């Protein structure tokens, strides 16, 4: 076995071990822990970068390493690293829990990395549970008023039900085809086209990922968890875990290609309801993180647009948008984290006068939100354009139309946030100081969001090459 094939996973396993030993220390040393975490995160980024072009199969062909999986592993490593960069102060996590916080963050990353490479049903399930269980612990880790416990329980319950539904679906798939390998299931499913068992099984099997991506009707956890978890945890859930979910949905959804319209129609309906529900309810939110939770529900709908085309163009768009979403959503969360230094939940009104308090953060905020809304020339615009074009070329005119209307609605609540930060002021709120590394992080994020929006070719080429290995 080539070690390089399993390199990123091994590396993060080692990192988890390091954090485990850190948790054993008697006296917590948050500063030192943070520095070790940063170093490990940076190393992880390096290792996944080096392993980008590996391809091969492991563990009795249950585990597949290809460009597709490696790109997403890199995205996960990037997400992990980015979340670490905003962990320089963790006011919401008790000092003696901070090493554990890093430990579980690492294990959930490992789980997701395993997930994007799995091509066997049980492996997928185990990997998914590994990543989920770590998050179940991370969410209630926030210290305070009990809102975290409520969120944690809700997350756990809905996650458990989703897992149950997913297992149920997987059992159907296994029962119908007699195999747990995706490669074996794929050619057999169309033979079952006359009976709904395969189709129903597939749809239920997708439930686990709908849960992660917060697609309707698995979205109920999102607002509470986004609000209740510590800001850094929310950031991780909102960025990296979404990318992993999209990756697996892309792998699994292709199984439904043989069913044609009836399968995609179910996805179309879920997509439309997700977008519309997310955007409409986001309008009336007052808490910024809750607003972003609903925005993520709406974005789940956009992701589904690319997935349900089941064609190369749509898959490219979905990959591009997943990567773009990671960066732009992180940009917004980074601003939240810097503005709410004490780790409180940020009300939209508390952004008042941000242009005065920190011009750079307000610029990042405007860039990130415009990217989420899909305003050119940002990366979000290009992503939405690719998504809508791919769906349009497949003839989903109404879906695209509803998507575009939803884009307009979403602009309303994003602009409301921008309005608050630029056109209102509150003399009680003092200026925000940001450290030099964060300053450079801001510049880099703005450059990426705008740069790859104007010149998306490189990413699109990469996504194209990755899609070839899946389809």
């Amino acid at each position: 076995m080539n070690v390089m094939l399993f390199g990123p996973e091994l590396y993060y396993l080692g990192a988890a071990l390091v954090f485990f030993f850190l948790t054993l220390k008697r006296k917590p040393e948050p500063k030192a822990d943070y520095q070790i975490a940063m170093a490990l995160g940076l190393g992880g980024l390096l290792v996944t970068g080096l392993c980008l072009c590996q391809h091969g199969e492991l563990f009795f062909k249950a585990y597949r390493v290809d460009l597709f999986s490696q790109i997403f592993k890199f995205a996960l490593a990037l997400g992990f690293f980015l979340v670490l960069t905003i962990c320089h102060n963790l006011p919401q996590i008790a000092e003696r829990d901070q090493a554990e916080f890093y430990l579980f963050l690492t294990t959930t990353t490992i789980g997701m990395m395993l997930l994007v490479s799995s091509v066997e049903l049980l492996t997928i399930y185990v990997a998914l549970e590994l990543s989920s269980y770590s998050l179940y612990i991370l969410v209630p880790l926030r210290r305070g008023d009990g809102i975290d416990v409520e969120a944690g329980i809700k997350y756990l319950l809905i996650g458990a039900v989703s897992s149950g539904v997913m297992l149920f679906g997987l059992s159907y798939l296994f029962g119908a085809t007699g195999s747990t390998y995706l490669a074996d299931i794929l050619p057999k499913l169309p033979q079952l086209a006359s009976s709904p068992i395969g189709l129903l099984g597939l749809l239920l099997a997708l439930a686990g990922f709908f849960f992660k991506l917060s697609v309707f009707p698995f979205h109920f956890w999102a607002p509470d968890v986004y609000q209740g978890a510590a800001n850094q945890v929310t950031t991780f859930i909102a960025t990296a875990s979404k990318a992993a979910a999209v990756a697996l949905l892309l792998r699994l959804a292709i199984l439904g290609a043989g069913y044609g319209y009836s399968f995609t129609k179910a996805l179309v309906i879920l997509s439309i309801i997700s977008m519309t529900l997310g955007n409409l309810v986001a309008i009336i939110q007052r808490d910024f993180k809750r607003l972003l939770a609903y925005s993520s529900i709406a974005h789940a709908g956009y992701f589904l647009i690319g997935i349900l085309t089941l064609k190369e163009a749509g898959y490219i768009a979905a990959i591009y948008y997943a990567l773009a979403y990671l960066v732009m959503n992180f940009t917004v969360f980074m601003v939240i984290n810097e503005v709410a230094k004490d780790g409180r939940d940020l009300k939209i009104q508390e952004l008042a006068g941000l242009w005065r308090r920190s011009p750079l953060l307000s610029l990042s905020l405007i860039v990130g939100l415009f990217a989420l809304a899909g305003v050119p020339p940002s990366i979000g615009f290009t992503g939405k354009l690719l998504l809508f074009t791919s769906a349009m070329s497949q003839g989903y005119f109404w879906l695209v139309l509803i998507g575009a209307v939803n884009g307009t609605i979403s602009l309303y609540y994003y602009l409301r946030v921008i309005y608050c930060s630029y056109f209102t002021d509150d003399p009680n709120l003092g200026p925000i100081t940001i450290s030099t590394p964060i300053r450079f992080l801001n510049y880099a994020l703005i450059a990426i969001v705008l740069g790859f929006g104007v010149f998306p070719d490189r990413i699109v080429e990469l996504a194209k090459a990755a899609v070839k290995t899946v389809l």
Partner: protein
Amino acid sequence: MGSCDPIFLSCFLIVALPLLSFAVIMIFTWRRHKLSLSISLTCSTIPLILAWSLFYKLHNAVTLAKPIITQVNWLVSDAVIVPFGFLLDPVSLLMLCIVATIAWLIQIYSIGYMEGDPGFARFYADLSLFGMSMLSLVSASGMLQLFISWELVGLASYLLIGFWYEKFSASEAGKKAFVVTRFGDIGFFMGLVFLTFFMKDLNIPGLGIFDINGAALTHKLSEAQVTLCALLIFCGVAGKSAQFPIHVWLPDAMEGPTPVSALLHSATMVAAGIYLITRLFPLFAASATAMSVVLVISTITLLLSSTIGMVAKDIKQVWAYSTVSQLGFMAMGLSAAALGGSTLFAGYYHLTTHAAFKALLFLCAGVFIHHFGTNDFFVMSKDGGRKLMIPMVTVTIGALALAGIFPFAGFFSKEAIMAQLWHLPNKLWVGLGLFGAFLTAYYTFRVIFVMLFPRKDDNPVWKEYYVREPGGHGHGAHDDDHDGHNGNHGVPWVMAFPLIVLAAFACVLGFMQTGLEKFLLGESHPHEMNYLLLVLAVGSALSGIGLAWLDWGSPAAKWQGFIRKVPVLENFFIQKWYMDHFWRWFLNTVIYGTFSRIFTYNDRRVVDGGVDAVAFSTIGSGRLLSFLQTAFVQLNLLFMVLVLAGVGLYLLMGR
């Protein structure tokens, strides 16, 4: 068509550098005047050199027999391809050189004129933008690019006319220029749309309507269609080139700093309209009806502005109305040529010479204004305007050229236009043209004689004429600073140098007629001298000057225009033919009173109401849907399972 093509590259630099200068000054260096000045000067000198070297390289007719087009595709949308690029043929190449030269000279001149102005850097940024848009207009390879540049010219002129925006009249004048020309541009744009629509062939190389020749046009389009398009496009021309009845913005445009007026009246803004006619000459020539309309309008313009020029007391206003009249003259020449089946040479030639001497006249006026802090040339006369040697000599040369006196440039170009008019079957037009020339000579030399031969200080005429308005007309507090040291300093060298260059142009351009014609048309037509016309033309110009001498020049003159004998007419002229009143009335009753009222009602009730309804119902549905999000996790789970069951049922039943 790579960027390695030297012609493309130099054209690109010609256009891009001034734009760059505009951007850099506006964003970075607007606080640092010296630095901005050097950026702007560099970015206008290089285009100047490039333009003339292009001219030098390509001036052999062989290379320009077919237009050189270098372009890259800018927008591609199915069948429509919009290119960005440059078209070089004799017409555009010569204009490119003229624009680059005059823009450069005016930048030099402004070093002296704008010295110490708080908006010095902004002024140079705007000048760069103005130059850039005109250069790109002149060299545009497609109609859309031309239109964009056309609008940019409008924008730049708005910025510059309203440059001293703290002064109410200046900002009003800028607004007026912008709105009035935009009024014409609507017609222009509709003309373009119709033309594209009628041609039905969106693949005209990048909407490059320049390529069409008259034959292909009449082949594809009916007579009425050509006329419609030509007339609509002429609306744009009338706006930019200040033709009756939308000329009203140009005289007000002198509210801007004088170098701006010089630029605006000679090579950039107003020249754009005439340039467009020459550009689309085949289109205009294909419709006799449209050309007759143009002829009538331009003749009215000529007479109207000449008569107003006779009574104006503001030197810039006189020159402004003379511009309007000369533009009318050019349009007359072009339309007469189109009707008579001749070439565009006469009108274009007059555009060239006019650019030189009109810039000269304005710059001279600028020197006087700068020196005396007033726009009233009677005041200048009393305060000793004749003592400023260089501007006095050069303004006289400019005036001689404007009046059309041999051997100055205006003589030759006016003669060429008269010849075109003479060939029309109806001799009325040439008669009116000669009358216009007579009036032009009269009002021009009214200014010159008043300035040259002031009355003695105790002469009673000063009671009427020596009225010093505080602050002067068209100038802010800026110029009052100079009152303190009247006459102490001569004319700064940076201001005198452009005067001399332009005066030289005004002297020699006339003798280059044959060469220019050969360059523009590829061949030179031998001219049979029409002695009768020659005598008539020179006679009308000389009699105009003679009358001016009797009224204003000779020691016995009473300093009263002959028009004083008909007070009704004089008042009519002083009120500028009541055109401003007409537009005010038109705006108040027709636009505000009727259309605005209806549209406002529609906007308030229908549009706003509709939008509000949509917005409120969206927010309302958001509130409604948010009830799904309850704190009871049991309900959430139940809902989840129900939805899944529903989808499952649908899949079971629906197939």
